[in-house]
């Protein structure tokens, strides 16, 4: 591990923009995690599997078959289709929504009264199953994925920034605004908040708890699918990458106590910034190992400082 601390303002500016994009990406998955946690008191690790499935599906639809490195493995799964990108994004998001709805119907149905840690373990199993299906179809895939927004760049704060990164930030802002509107200004939002606050009381006053919960899982699945599609052009397509990003998003959600969307987004943006600044060399040469230690320390401190605040909620969830 290498550490040589200093401060480079030019790198700071560049990493700032990169970090916002990265944080926005973590934020999209963090929103999905918080939404479903508030509905079902379950950490939706399954979103990692959904993101994986959607990302692979999107890549399968849009990738240029001549550029697919796994072609040598053989099989029709590697014969990608080069479809137009936006219909493929919509299909991948719909796949995520469908998977989210299926999982939601399970956890809000028979599993509604099961211990939450058990259901969370079930969620881990679902993630592993989806990742296993993807890894079985596309063994050892580690592919480049074309961005839905092209490969071009523009200049911002004197630095070159990909359209893809800007689009991720814009999408997250739009998501936050629209979710905030739905949650605070609509009848559906009131019902969702009522379920999140007291599921029994919501049921007594006639709110269709299960239908709304499944709807929220469906929407969260769509977000996870979108997150998977937006993630892989920034990294590469592989099962391991998505779990790594899911941890960042979960950490963001933890910093928000799994309760507050703004705090979860804040947490995700902090993680994105720290990661980007450290990786970009703003503070000098810091090895990737130290970067992970720094992020892990933030996560631990966040848990120790913030988790106490939400402890009663979690205890309620596990009861």
């Amino acid at each position, binding site marked *: 591990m290498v550490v040589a601390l200093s401060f480079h303002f030019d790198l700071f500016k560049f990493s700032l923009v990169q970090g916002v994009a990265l944080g926005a990406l973590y934020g999209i998955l963090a929103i999905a995690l918080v939404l479903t946690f508030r509905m079902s008191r379950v950490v939706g690790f399954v979103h990692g599997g959904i993101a994986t499935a959607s990302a692979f599906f999107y890549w399968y639809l849009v990738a240029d078959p001549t550029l697919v490195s796994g072609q040598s493995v053989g099989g029709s799964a590697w014969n990608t289709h080069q479809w137009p990108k936006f219909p493929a994004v919509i299909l991948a998001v719909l796949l995520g929504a469908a998977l989210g709805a299926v999982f939601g119907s399970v956890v809000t149905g028979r599993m509604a009264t099961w211990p939450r840690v058990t259901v969370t373990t079930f969620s881990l*199993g679902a993630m592993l199953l989806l990742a296993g299906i993807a*890894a079985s179809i596309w063994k050892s895939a580690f592919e480049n994925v074309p961005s839905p927004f092209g490969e071009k760049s523009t200049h911002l704060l004197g630095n070159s920034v990909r359209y893809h990164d800007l689009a991720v930030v814009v999408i997250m802002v739009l998501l936050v605004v629209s979710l905030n509107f739905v949650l605070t200004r609509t009848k559906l939002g009131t019902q969702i908040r009522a379920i999140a606050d007291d599921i029994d009381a919501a049921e007594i006053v006639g709110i269709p708890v299960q239908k709304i919960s499944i709807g929220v899982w469906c929407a969260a699945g769509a977000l996870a699918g979108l997150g998977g599609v937006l993630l892989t052009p920034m990294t590469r397509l592989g099962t391991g990458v998505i779990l790594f990003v899911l941890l960042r998003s979960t950490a963001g959600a933890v910093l928000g106590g799994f309760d507050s969307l703004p705090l979860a987004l804040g947490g995700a943006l902090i993680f994105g910034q720290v990661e980007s600044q450290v990786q970009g060399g703003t503070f000098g040469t810091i090895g990737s190992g130290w970067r992970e230690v720094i992020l892990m320390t933030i996560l631990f401190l966040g848990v120790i400082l913030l988790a106490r605040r939400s402890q009663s909620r979690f205890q309620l969830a596990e009861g």
Partner: protein
Amino acid sequence: MLQKLMAPLGKLKEPLAKAMAPLGKLTGGNPLIPGIVAFVALAVIVPPLLAGYWIFLVTAGLLTTITAMGLAIIVGWVGEVNLAGAGLLGASVYVTGYFYRVGDSRLNGWPFIPAALTGILFAAFLSGMVAIPTARFSGIYVMVLTLGLQITLERTLFSFPWIIGGFGRNVIVNRPKFLGVSFDSDLRFFYLCLAAAVAAGLFVNALRNSRHGRAMNLIRTDKRAAAAVGISPWRYKILAFAIGGGLIGVAGAFTAPLYRSPPAIVQFIAFQSLFLLAIPVVAGTRTLLGIASVALSFALIPQALESHHLSPFLLGGIGLIAGTIVGPGGLGGNLLDILQKQKEVAILSAVGLAVDVEAEVDLTVAPTPARVETDNGGGPSVAADGDEIVLRDRPPRLKA
């Protein structure tokens, strides 16, 4: 929908119970006997029948069994989900290998035992450390932080070539030697790992029956009750994590020389942690033999899946899902229930009570108490008003 999915599993219980009936009769329902039979089969019968490669795989399966026992303490006894199983295993593998190996390495040539102890203690320390800030919080935080530990290990420890000894270096990790006896051959190393697995099993069994083991189980069942009788959930959770981590470390220490060279990092990534977690979830934690059977299956089945181009993660995912559906007892717990019922039947038969075996092996909850017919000295059976067996999902008990 889930109910429909689970219906076939429920229907499986009855034929499973019937299929187990002869085994129950044969063993008198004593769960130790299948354990001894399995041990003898593994030690004596299996090695001559298997080719070298399969011996190697069964050895890997035995080490997976030790790992699963460590996870079972954490998952089954204190009810926490540890997502760093593979990371802890890898940490022990590489730390043991770092001190033990010979070749292009900074520190090398330690005897195996001190090197292995270092690896074991390192894994126990990491596992205990991650438990300290989280033991007071909910299981959900434990999951997140253990996943964090896993990813951190992947990005730190596993990325240092001088520790892992990989990346094309000429590094040899010899099989150990004790008291002049070399365990270099696959068969001898298999016996060494079998001894380690049996020792680990005896340790876990003794711990489970000890005051500390009971305290850990009470914490999972009812934290408040535990605290009321003076058991600190915090301390015992940390202890469970440290002991579980230590056992995983033992598996790691023996895995280090398994391949005779440093194993690939891909064996210790986060998804592998979920795969390992599936073992105690599927097997339950009531029977060590159940854990060993599932662990061996999980070590061997991926080899069969490989030829069909199926990822082992599929098995792990199905295992985790099935394990949560079957319930906290797992498959092992259900089988143990059946064996226990057979034992009760054997006892009842021995004291002269004729029991309807069909009814005895039925695991479904009976709405009303069933009456037992007593054998009337070889004459026609008559119902004895005073003798009743209440059928529950627990072993039946005689009512006075």
